[in-house]
Structures are given as C-alpha cells and as structure tokens.
C-alpha cells in the first residue's frame, strides 16, 4: 500500500535540491567560520549567503537581523527571555496568546518564577486572538508579547498587522512565532510591524537542527546562551554550517515557489475539508477560510484521536496527527483545542492533516475513504 504522508507539521523531508546544495558543507567545505584560513572563509561566506536568503524571505531590513539558533524552540526562548531580562528596567510583564506553542508558554512560565507577571490572551472559538482583550491586557510594563503568525494545530492565521499596532501603542516588543506559517504564506516583517520572528528550517523542507530569530534593528535583548560570541554574541556555539546553508536554500526555494505551491495545496485542502465534513458529527477546527493553505483539522464525536491515528496508519498507511491527550506525554488534551472552547471529550477526537510537496489532488478520494472507514469502525466499537 502506497504511503500517504499527511503530517508535515510534525516533520518534513529535506528538499532534494536543498540536500544537493548543502551536501558539500558536510563533506569538503567543512571549515569553522571562526577560522581565519581559507576553509574558514568558505564556511563564513556560505553562512552569510544563507542569512541573506532568509532575510529576503521575510523582507528583513538587513541580513544582520537574522540570528541562527539550534531550532525554533531555542529562537522562541531567546526572543522571550532575551528581551524580558534585558528590558527589566522597563517592566516585568510578558504576554502570549492561549494557543502559543509550548516553547513560548514555558519560557514565560519560567519568567513567572523570577517575579514576572504572565498574561494569557484568550482566543475565540475559531482561534482568533481577542484583540480587545489584548488591548485591555497590555501596559507599558509589558516588554514582550508573543503571538504566533498561524497555529499548527488548527491552521488559523492571526491578524498580525492589527496585533502589531496594538502592541506598539500599549507595550514594547512583538514576538511572532512563524514556524507554521513560513514558506506557506508571505511574511513581511517590516510591513507587518514585527520586532522578533521565529523561523524553523525543517518546517520549510530544510535540514533539522537549525532555526532563526529575526531581530529588528534597535531591539535590545541579551543572550541566553553565552560562550564564544558567535551570532553577534546572541547565540554562541560553532555554527551548524550544513543545516544553516540548507535552511538558506530552503528559504530561497520557498520564496520562489510558495505562491504556486500554496495554491496547489489549497485546492487539495478545500476538497478534503468538503469531503470530510460530510461525515456525520464531524467538524472543522480553526478558521474556515483564514487558515494555512496546507492545513485541514477536524474533530469527530464519540471517538478518540490516538485510535484514529493508529487506524489510519495501520489499515491505510496514511499518517496524520492528533491533539488527543492519549497520544501526548502529559495525558492532557491539546491546550489549543481547550483554548478554542472544546470540552475535554471533544478535544479527544481530533485529527490534523498538514499537506506537503508529496501530496496530490488524486489522493483525496483515498484519504476520504480511509477517514470514513476509520470513523465508522471506531464508532462501531464505541459505546457513546
């Protein structure tokens, strides 16, 4: 049975063009960019080229606004702790939406332990940040407010430009986690009014093990990883050249091909949403149209998500994701699904599809049939 992989938010393959472009930085051009000799210079040049490509993807003011980190989690930590600690003189408040990734929420909770006040901004039933609550919650003491560009579990795209206006009227810096959105929808940090932006390499077909943080000129933050002073002293550690070069090339490809590819995936997404919501007691989660082009998420009454995942995988060789408690380490349902107001028993029955390069429109009937069979079988087993 041919595999249909529909979990690109969890992991993506590296684009073969990226691999071909970056491979030599593992094999022959392996110098340390801090070395003064020619091998070091080759590596340094390659890193600066990658920095430029990433700056172009998000329309950063200059290449030097881009800092390479180890992953999106690290970028989020640097953005939040770095600005909160550096600007303590201005205030000790931080804020984030209720549907932020755990790598945004947990650093803020950690700051709470050091006396910071952490405000959670609620979202509505389709995952849109409550801008009035945001406006009421922020004060001049709020040094960093973190709102994601788009959510990876429910696909909703946030009104970042409007959020930026509010943040800059009332508070200091806006950090945006664009892990799910980058390479899918256009991002313009200058036009959107973003101070700090997180990107992840593997979420746009680049190698794992690298992320970036965009830092607007003039934004003040301190390192959370002191050492040899690489990356303007903000992120020490010898650079992961292969991954950095790969991420740069992935960003270039994303910039060139995003529009066309997103249109292609949007058609598949819409077809899937049409077909799957025809199933009895199935519901779309997240925004009906202001959503990521590759993203379709659902919940089904009377069944549980881990069982959906296992049945789809074992019986149909289709890989999906779920926000069910039963598939999580903590045994708590996804905080995103609870934040949009789902009850625990509703949040258990969720399924998330994230499309990618390998998916084709012709796969829709097979996917739909597999989902139908899965739901039917599990409902037959269910006493509800």
């Amino acid at each position, binding site marked *: 049975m041919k595999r249909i992989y529909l979990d690109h938010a969890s992991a993506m393959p590296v684009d073969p063009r990226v691999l071909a472009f970056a491979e030599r930085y593992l094999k022959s051009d392996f110098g340390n960019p801090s070395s003064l000799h020619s091998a070091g210079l080759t590596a340094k040049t390659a890193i600066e080229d990658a920095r430029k490509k990433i700056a172009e993807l998000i329309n950063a003011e200059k290449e030097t606004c881009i800092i390479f980190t180890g992953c999106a989690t690290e970028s989020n930590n640097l953005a939040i702790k770095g600005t909160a600690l550096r600007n303590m003189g201005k205030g000790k408040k931080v804020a984030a939406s209720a549907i932020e990734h755990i790598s945004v929420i947990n650093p803020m909770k950690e700051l709470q332990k050091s006396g910071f006040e952490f405000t959670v901004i609620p979202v509505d039933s389709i995952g849109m940040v409550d801008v009035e609550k945001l406006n009421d919650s922020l004060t001049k003491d709020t040094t960093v407010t973190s709102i994601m560009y788009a959510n990876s579990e429910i696909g909703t795209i946030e009104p970042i430009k409007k959020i930026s206006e509010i943040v800059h009227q009332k508070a200091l810096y806006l950090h945006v986690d664009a892990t799910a959105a980058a390479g899918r929808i256009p991002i313009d940090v200058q036009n959107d009014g973003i101070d700090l932006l997180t990107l992840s390499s593997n979420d746009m077909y680049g190698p794992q093990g690298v992320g970036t943080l965009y830092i607007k000129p003039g934004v003040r933050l301190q390192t959370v990883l002191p050492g040899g002073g690489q990356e303007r002293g903000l992120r020490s550690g010898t650079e992961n050249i292969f991954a950095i070069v790969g991420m740069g090339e992935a960003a270039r490809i994303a910039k060139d091909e995003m529009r066309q590819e997103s249109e292609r995936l949007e058609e598949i997404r819409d077809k899937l949403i049409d077909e799957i919501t025809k199933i009895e007691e199935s519901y779309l989660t997240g925004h009906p149209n202001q959503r990521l082009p590759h993203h379709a998420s659902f919940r089904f009454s*009377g069944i549980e*998500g881990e*069982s959906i995942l296992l049945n789809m*995988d*074992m019986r149909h060789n289709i890989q999906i994701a779920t926000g069910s*408690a039963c598939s999580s380490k903590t045994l708590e349902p996804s905080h995103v699904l609870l934040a949009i107001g789902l*009850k625990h028993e509703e949040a258990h029955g969720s399924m998330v599809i994230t499309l990618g390069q390998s998916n084709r429109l012709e796969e829709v009937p097979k996917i739909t049939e597999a989902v139908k069979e899965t739901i039917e079988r599990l409902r037959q*087993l269910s006493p509800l």
Partner: protein
Amino acid sequence: MAQIGYSKKVLDHFMNPRNVGTIEDADGYGKVGNPVCGDLMEMYIKVKDDIIIDIKFKTFGCGSAIATSSMVTEMAKGMHVDEALKLTRNDVADELEGLPPVKMHCSNLAADALHAAIKDYKKKGGETKEGQ
C-alpha cells in the same frame, strides 16, 4: 507504521478486536471510565453455572484502551466468575506483552470493567438467576 511503543499483540488486538458488541440479555453489565478522560468501557457477560460463557465489550478510547478490552474478554471467556475477579490490570498488560508505562493507569481499565460486570451479576443473585 505506527509504533508509539505498542507491542505487536496490542496492535493486533487494536486492529482485530475480539468480542466486540453488546449482549441484550446480559447477566452482568459493567461500565468504567469517563469520556472526559478519554476512556469509556462497557462490558457485558453471559453466565452459566458461574462460568462466563459469553462476553462482549464496547470501548471509546485510545489504542491500548481498545486492545486491553479485547484482551480481557479473551482471557475471561470460559472462566469461573470468582477466578475472573482475580484477573488484574497487570495480568491483562502482561498478556499483551506489556503496555507503555504512561498507558498502564489511564487506559488499562478493562479488568475493572470486567470486575464491575461480575459484581453486577453477583448483585443480581448470581447463579440463582439460572433457570428463570
């Protein structure tokens, strides 16, 4: 293919669950769990001379909730009710060649559901019900 730390036997029972369904004139019925927690099990037993001659289940829950339900029905079928009452959660997990540690408590309720059904049978008068 799915792993999540499940044994082959767990996946087999998840994919091909034994004794799914309900028994209309069941001699005992047990229900444990709660949809809020993500697991709900219903167990039906048919008893003759204190021997479980038929057993069916319905389960809402994750892979291990379904697999343990299926497993316990296989284990209990043909057993004396007092013997079946001694089956523990660990016995079920062992028979399935183990469960991931995180699943041992939350979704390993099948033995509890069986015990609830047997207690219901005993409450109704046990074998005196025979011949009615």
